[in-house]
């Protein structure tokens, strides 16, 4: 809407688009760094999906790793048995995840705050346990290896191709989410978050809108999960535990809820920190936890609030 936002968006995309070239020029640095940044893009999609649910419709989810996992397993299983390509797998992953979200989405219409948080936490744990148990389909803890992904029949296994697909998916998701938020459904999400009574008085069906928010959010998270399966080339239950959910949660809150840019900023901060700390043997958990505490203490309304405060003072 504003010029600043346009500039920010174009700068983000331009830098992202040029990154592979830069990495190529400074020496063969693509495989690892493109993997890490692709992963970040995919997590950003999850963060946006979680923000759609928490920041906009005001419903807590501590089970987003569960939605992510359903998408990832859908893609892996379709790829394993039917060699389905990336785009169809993502759609299938998103749809199945959306369908699965109804399990928690319906009770969610009757639950509030921490009740919902803990029920969704349980959902994430259950997806994990079932994936481990149902090994005929999921490979149990040995997971599923994906075959080289194809994009409408064209093989696209290279890190560069996966990187651009991840970037494209992120950009498309940003545009779709932004459109959704500035039209009728997006406004009704915010309305039920701000005041259920007033929203109902405006004709917004509370229960249906809450479920819809869950479904939309789960769709995006599932889509991200499916893409992640192709990126990592491997899907196993250990990757979808509580730790992962907490990271997603921290990304959204640290970024500042109710803002797409905030969700992306939070992802860059938290995931960047995770990547940086992952090579510091044994200290990563303490560093990550410590920084989250500090950020919350000094920027309680998130990065978004921090930037806004700076804009106001200067």
């Amino acid at each position, binding site marked *: 809407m504003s010029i600043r936002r346009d500039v920010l968006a174009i700068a983000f995309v331009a830098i992202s688009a040029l990154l592979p070239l830069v990495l190529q020029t400074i020496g063969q640095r693509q495989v690892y760094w493109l993997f890490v940044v692709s992963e970040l893009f995919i997590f950003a999609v999850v963060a946006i999906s979680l923000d759609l649910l928490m920041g906009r419709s005001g419903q807590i989810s501590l089970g987003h790793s569960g939605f992510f996992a359903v998408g990832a397993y859908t893609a892996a299983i379709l790829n394993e048995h039917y060699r389905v390509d990336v785009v169809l797998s993502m759609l299938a992953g998103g749809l199945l995840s959306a369908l699965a979200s109804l399990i928690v989405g319906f009770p969610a219409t009757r639950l509030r705050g921490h009740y919902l948080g803990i029920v969704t936490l349980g959902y994430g744990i259950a997806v994990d346990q079932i994936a481990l148990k149902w090994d005929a389909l999921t490979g149990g803890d040995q997971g599923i290896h994906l075959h080289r992904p194809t994009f409408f029949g064209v093989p696209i296994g290279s890190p560069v191709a996966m990187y651009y697909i991840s970037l494209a998916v992120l950009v498309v998701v940003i545009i779709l989410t932004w459109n959704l938020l500035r039209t009728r459904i997006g406004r009704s999400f915010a309305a039920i978050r701000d005041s259920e009574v007033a929203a109902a008085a405006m004709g917004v069906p509370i229960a249906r809108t809450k479920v819809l928010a869950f479904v939309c959010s789960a769709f995006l998270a599932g889509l991200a999960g499916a893409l992640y399966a192709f990126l990592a080339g491997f899907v196993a239950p250990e990757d979808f535990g509580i730790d992962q959910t907490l990271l997603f949660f921290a990304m959204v809150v640290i970024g500042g809820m109710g803002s797409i840019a905030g969700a992306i900023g939070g992802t860059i901060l938290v995931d960047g920190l995770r990547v940086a700390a992952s090579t510091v043997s044994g200290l990563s958990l303490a560093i990550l*936890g410590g920084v989250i505490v500090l950020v919350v203490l000094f920027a309680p309304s998130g990065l978004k609030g921090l930037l806004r405060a700076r804009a106001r003072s200067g």
Partner: protein
Amino acid sequence: MIQYVLQLALAGLAQGSLYALTALGLVVIYNASTVVNFAQGAMGMAATYVAYLLLTNAQVPFPIALLGAILTAFLIGVVVQTALLGRIADAPILTQVVLTLGLFMFIEGILGIFFGYNPRPMAIPLGIGPVLIGGLVLRPQDVIELALLIVLSVGLATLFRTTKIGLGMRAITENMYAARLMGIPIGRVLSLAWGIGVMLGGVAAVLAAPTTSVTPNMMDTIVVYAFVAAILGGFGSLLGAVVGGLVLGVIVNFIDAFLAPELAMSIVFGMLLVILYVKPDGLFGRRTVEKV
């Protein structure tokens, strides 16, 4: 068969008392500050390391080690409230919850760095072995767990009913603004609530240590069950948390024995989903009416 079922139930009650104690702490904290403390298990675990060090290095008797852990846990609660959460009291509740998530990672990480992740043994030296009563094995630790649960929950109930500070705690739950006007020292009451809440988690962790051993992750599963117990009990009701914990302990044991131990947590959450669909405020919860 009956004996078998009874034995399962008894062990379930003992384990359930750990869920109940942890849940009780969660509820006390929630009632005062409306924050769900995700670091509850980690804080209790940290206190358990104190008991462990006292027992193994200083070789003190168990009651003194337990007291050490209780004091540590209480202090952790007070410090976290005054030094951390108190500073962002105006931030949205979700932000405060994220702070406890960060603390959860931080505490586990720090203790992992200092003590490593090898399970450290901690037995409660009782000097008496299991007793056979009518074919049932009664373990002294079961008795202690249940006894401490009863003593602490009755003590808490008395505190809330009769003392001024306890009433203050209830008052700020009802209406923070009014409580301030009434001259209730909110900061002090909140600190006390956090102290007591974390202390209960600490007691649970010390009691869990003989079975789980002392590790930074010792409370991870127990705290998830404690969340379930608190929710079953209506998250807010002390009696609810106690009953929720005990019932859950028995249910989990029956699932382990008769259904599928490897899916226990999934089955528990499935049941929780059904229960909440029928009774959205838990078994003991009150529906709060929104005023227009």
